[in-house]
């Protein structure tokens, strides 16, 4: 992994007709990095990916790949691989011919073609399926064919659109480790788009959280998970108790609440349910809901601060519905937010 920028998006703006999809996006990726574009549907992540691939023209900005401005290079000349969410295999061709397509476009023929295609199929464990019709394969197999098809041409950048979302739970784990293995083996720079924070956290070196066509936060999985920059990111990665701060006090329901300790100078604070202490503290609330989840028990409390979600060790005695419970939002464990709303 070098420190040099490999792909950079500079003030990239994208639109569908008059509807702006992405505005002034700036992003850099180093060679060999595995980057996740994370966000809810409609946040512009897929649009950004399509623009990088050349499937849509930016209304403004620049895309530079490997030192070359590719903003106006047509998609078929960009040497970027894309694994579609639907896999987009060619239904009239065999698995072998699907994988061979890109190589044939490059003029690879004969023995060389056969060897490269077979190596590609072998790397995804589908060599024995070479002569089958591509669309006769299962979803997971189709995805691997699609992956091999994109990788055999050795693109400068490989992008994957929701690579795991169409697979069932077990296949998802397999595919996740397979992607990591392939990326490690080939050292290929990869970008994948996902709406699932678990996927992004598990796979990526770097995560870009997007919202409404703009970047909300860029960081390592640890950054995103532990130090969300905004209330949106915090909510997205499971901080369910998010508050605005003013003059060191929590703002809820238009009222101010003093916290037990000195507050950091931040516009907001966020707590995961597990960070809330139950049984002691300056606040109190009524138990609205209890849910048992194996090793932990989750509570919803009705409090002057609004609903508070808490999780505690299930081994502790359970509170019952309607019970008054004291609780604390410990400042020490809270994630300070840089921006709220």
């Amino acid at each position, binding site marked *: 992994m070098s420190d040099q920028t490999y792909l950079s998006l500079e003030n990239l703006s994208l639109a569908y007709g008059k509807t702006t999809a992405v505005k002034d996006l700036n992003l850099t990726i180093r060679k060999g990095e595995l980057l996740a574009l994370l966000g809810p549907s409609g946040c512009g992540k897929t649009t950004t990916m399509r623009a990088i*691939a*050349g*499937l849509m023209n930016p209304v403004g900005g620049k895309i530079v790949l490997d030192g070359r401005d590719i903003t106006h290079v047509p*998609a*078929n*000349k*960009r040497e*970027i*691989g*894309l694994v*579609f969410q*639907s896999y*987009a*295999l*060619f*239904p*009239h061709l065999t698995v072998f011919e699907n994988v061979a*397509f*890109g190589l044939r*476009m*490059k003029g690879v023929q004969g023995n060389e073609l056969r060897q490269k295609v077979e190596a590609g199929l072998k790397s995804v464990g589908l060599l024995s399926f070479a002569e089958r019709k591509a669309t006769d394969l299962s979803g997971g197999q189709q995805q691997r064919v699609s992956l091999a*098809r*994109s990788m055999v*041409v050795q693109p400068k950048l490989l992008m994957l659109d929701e690579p795991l979302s169409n697979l069932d739970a077990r296949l998802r784990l397999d595919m996740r480790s397979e992607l990591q293995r392939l990326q490690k083996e080939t050292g290929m720079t990869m970008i994948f788009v996902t709406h699932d924070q678990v996927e992004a956290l598990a796979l990526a070196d770097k995560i870009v959280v997007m919202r409404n066509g703009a970047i909300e936060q860029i960081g390592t999985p640890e950054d995103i998970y532990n130090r969300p920059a905004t209330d949106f990111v915090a909510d997205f990665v499971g901080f369910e108790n998010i508050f605005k701060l003013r003059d060191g006090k929590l703002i809820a329901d238009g009222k101010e609440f003093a916290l037990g300790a000195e507050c950091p100078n931040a516009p907001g604070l966020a707590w995961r349910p597990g960070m809330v202490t139950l049984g002691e503290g300056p606040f109190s609330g009524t138990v609205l809901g209890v849910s048992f989840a194996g090793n932990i028990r989750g509570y919803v409390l009705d409090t002057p601060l609004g609903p508070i979600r808490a999780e505690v060790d299930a081994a502790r005695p359970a509170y019952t519905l309607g019970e008054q419970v004291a609780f604390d939002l410990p400042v020490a464990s809270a994630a300070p937010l840089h921006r709220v709303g």
Partner: protein
Amino acid sequence: MIRRLFTPLTLFLMMLFLIGPFLIIVAASFSAGETLAFPPQGFSFRWIIKVFTIESFRQSFGVSMFLAIGGTLAALILGIPASYAMSRYRLPFAETVRFLVSMPIIVPGIIVGLALLRYFVIPVGMSVTLALFVAHTALILPYAVRVVSASLANLRADIEEAAVILGSSRLGAFFRVVLPNIRGGILSAFILGFVTSFNQVPVSLFLSGPGVRTLPIDMLGYMENVFDPSIAALSSLLAFLSIGIVFAAERFLGFSRYV
């Protein structure tokens, strides 16, 4: 008991009503007699053989074949890009085009024929063959657009993008990825167009000239003068030709999936 018999009986009567006349014609074509009659008098192949010796039939068969094949090809050449554009791009006048394209099915054929004669053949001197060709192409176009559109609708658009990303040009992607996948639809459209054109009477009615007549029109003319079983023989031959084509199409292409 009556209820249980009712359904099969109705079905039987319907089939009899639909297929009966056809069976009569087929039976009549093997007649040995001199006139078109049922029940047929005797059994022979003489009228079937005679069909092939009638010069005007041979000529009009050629005209009909030319119109059916040429018209269908022309309709496909116009219809495939039109269907493609309508299915893949949001065009400003897509609905208007779709409507215009289906007009020839809605407008009675006889009016189309008369209009072409009155406004093209007579004043402009357009040849009858050309007028027939234009009429048949227009008539087949709706079928071509419809059937090809149906198979395009079943084809994901992202496979074209996949082809482009793998290095193919847009046009190349159309030929490499789109056409092979709608081959079945195109062949079905061809067969449907061919049969529609070949059996076409109203449009062709006004459009006949010296030496230029479609086969069905020629058959009408023949029957006005000669009332022998050769018409029945020819009708049977044509019916079997159509059935054969459709059967082969269904067998090898799954024709009914597209229509």
